[in-house]
């Protein structure tokens, strides 16, 4: 086989020219060979996730990454687990300079990343039909979806069945107390020397407000509650003041631990189930991420009598069946990623019904990915059954206050409603006035 036809002239000079051309062509072909198919080049993604100390979530993600790497040999994933606060600080710095990881973890209260153009829309990378509609809405900006909503949660009221018996209280059949019943329970708990609720806000801007926000949601109903969170209804509205006044009475009765201001979220778990023990724990359903691990790793004791009840309905509540459902930890793609193809494939591999089921089964937590609950089996099935029962008939409000509030308004929420109000440091009127001033100023 002759790669290049001979010249009819056959002169020495022409032969030399032909040789040179052949050499150049061969060199060009050799140079081109390794780069022919672009995706044949192995790509290494960097992926940052929260949950370094939440064993079940961490294992789930590590397993999915391993499976993805096995199924997609051209893509490698450099997976790192970082605490949420550090992760946020790092990505907020690095996105501006083009140094952010290809995939990172965010919650929908950080939709500003998408608004500022730092996130890649995922519409063309993942099958959006595999995501729950409400979860897509939480991450939609300008008609595009910007995250793979791995984690979702409802705001629950956990309690210790044994302590409940000890103070002589039996929850009602529907597991939802009235205002009077709840007040009585808190007083009995305090009288028995048991802290009514374990709450710590030392490292988080929201858990101190969980109880109040759920009461406000039930009192106002979803529409007015949304208006409240978006600054269209003032906190000085009489219904809001009424709800806050009742919560303040509970605060003054000793509902929250005195060490709440400095207790970290992880410590509040331990406070609830191990030492010193609290009657209730108002927290999102991601409680299980830390609690359902071995006690020596900070999990709840094996024989812990965990119960779930509904938040109480105030007298005159507009929507006693209302409940908060929100998207939590999600994975986003950096808009300036150089490995978008692999990053898209990685996110796509997470967004399947099969993985949704695996998440619910192993983490025992809701997800924004569609699931088929009939296939779910687990040793914690009784807990999951109870969680479903508490949600039966619920009318869901999507998103938590910090998903709606930002800037000065969000900061005031964190300082006042999350910390000072449940800490008994500010009056009802002062708290409401501060919220109105900040949220009105923030627009």
């Amino acid at each position: 086989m002759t790669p290049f036809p001979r010249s009819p002239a056959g002169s020495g000079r022409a032969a030399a020219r032909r040789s040179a051309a052949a050499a150049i062509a061969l060199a060009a072909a050799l140079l081109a060979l390794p780069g022919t198919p672009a995706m044949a080049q192995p790509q290494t993604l960097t992926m940052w996730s929260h949950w370094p100390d939440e064993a079940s979530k961490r294992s789930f993600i590590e397993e999915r990454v391993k499976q993805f790497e096995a199924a997609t040999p051209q893509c490698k994933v450099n997976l790192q687990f970082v605490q949420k606060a550090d992760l946020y600080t790092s990505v907020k710095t690095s996105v501006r300079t083009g140094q952010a990881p290809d995939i990172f973890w965010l919650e929908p209260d950080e939709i500003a990343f998408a608004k500022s153009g730092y996130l890649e829309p995922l519409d063309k990378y993942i099958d959006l039909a595999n995501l729950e509609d409400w979860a897509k809405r939480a991450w939609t900006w300008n008609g595009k979806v910007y995250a793979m909503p791995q984690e979702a949660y409802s705001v629950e009221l956990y309690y210790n069945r044994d302590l409940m018996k000890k103070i002589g209280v039996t929850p009602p059949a529907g597991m939802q107390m009235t205002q009077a019943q709840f007040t009585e329970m808190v007083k009995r708990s305090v009288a028995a020397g048991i802290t009514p609720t374990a709450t710590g806000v030392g490292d988080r801007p929201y858990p101190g407000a969980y109880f109040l926000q759920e009461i406000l949601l039930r009192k106002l109903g979803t529409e007015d509650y949304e208006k409240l969170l978006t600054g269209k209804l003032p906190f000085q509205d009489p219904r809001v003041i009424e709800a806050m006044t009742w919560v303040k009475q509970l605060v003054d009765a000793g509902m929250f631990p005195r060490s709440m201001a400095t207790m970290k979220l992880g410590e509040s778990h331990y406070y609830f189930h191990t030492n010193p023990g609290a009657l209730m724990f108002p927290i999102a359903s991601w409680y299980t991420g830390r609690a359902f691990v071995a006690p020596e790793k900070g999990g709840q004791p094996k024989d812990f009598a965990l119960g779930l009840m509904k938040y109480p309905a105030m007298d005159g509540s507009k929507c006693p069946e209302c409940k908060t459902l929100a998207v939590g930890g999600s994975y986003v793609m950096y808009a300036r990623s150089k490995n978008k193809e692999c990053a898209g494939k990685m996110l796509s591999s997470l967004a399947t019904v099969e993985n949704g089921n695996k998440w619910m089964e192993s983490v025992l937590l809701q997800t924004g990915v569609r699931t088929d609950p009939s296939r779910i089996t687990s040793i914690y099935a009784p807990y999951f059954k109870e969680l479903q029962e508490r949600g039966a008939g619920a009318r869901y409000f999507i998103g938590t206050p910090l998903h709606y509030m930002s800037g000065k308004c969000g900061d005031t929420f964190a300082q006042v409603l999350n910390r000072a109000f449940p800490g008994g440091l500010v009056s009802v009127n002062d708290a409401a006035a501060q919220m109105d001033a900040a949220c009105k100023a923030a627009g």
Partner: protein
Amino acid sequence: MSDPSSGAAAALRRTLASWLSAPEADSRRASLPTVMLFLAPALLVYAALTAYPVLRTFYNSFFNVADLASSEFVGWTHYAEVFKDKTFWAAVRNTAIWSVIGPVLDVVAGLLLALCLYAGVPFSRFLRVAWFTPVLLSYVVVGIMWVWIYNYDWGVVNGLLRAVGLQAWSQAWLGDPRFALGSLIVTHAWKWAGFNMVVCLAALHSLPSEVLEAAELDNCGWWHKLTDVIVPMLWPTLLNLYILAFIGKMKVFDLVWIMTEGGPVWSTETVSTYVYKRAFNWNTFDLGYPSAIAVVWFFVVVGFVVFFNVLFRRRERMEY
């Protein structure tokens, strides 16, 4: 061809030769290229890590900076906003309280510890190490440790109060706006007292023994010896320590962030924590506004440094 010994080429050669050869006037002085060779690394590091960030912060303060590649010029808007910002003024007030009171506590504690060692208390060698150890600890360790110490339920402070029957005095030290800032100041003083102790001890050992002996011969009591002899002679050292601590506390960040994050209700917010919050914690990517706060505070700190410098020069002129 032109004569190589004349014209511009020759002038250039002569200049280079003069640079490269040792100066004739003083053979001990290095030539400019040699000086530059040794200075360049330090200058580059200084320019990249100090000068450029400072200048960039000034520049950014006139823009809305969501992305370094695209910014919107807003002129003096951020500066006008800073002076109307209530949280900024709360942070200024807290920082001012900390900067004025904190150093007094640091210096007095350091002086007292140094006097104990100078007087030769038992186990002084051990105490010297023990009291200096907090200086070596990082703010993270100190912060976490003192959060535990102040804990309402199991903290040492409340434990001691309960043990001596003062249960009513037990507090959520970091959870109450009335006590939170004071609690942080105490923690900071605990960390730095050892450093001040070492400096005061060195100064005490350098005091002229004749003066102290003369005071003893005059039957001067220990209190008068301290207030009328020792402290006046240590005054320049104490003042230096105070000013160093003052400047440091104008920028205090680490301990506050670890222990309270500026809460509760902004009672421990400092200018530094507020800048950090605005830059990285709020759901906004604007670096312009926090840059404006940083610039304002930069000039405040520089103003105090200049003020203290002038004050010191006057004192020196008066003394000598």
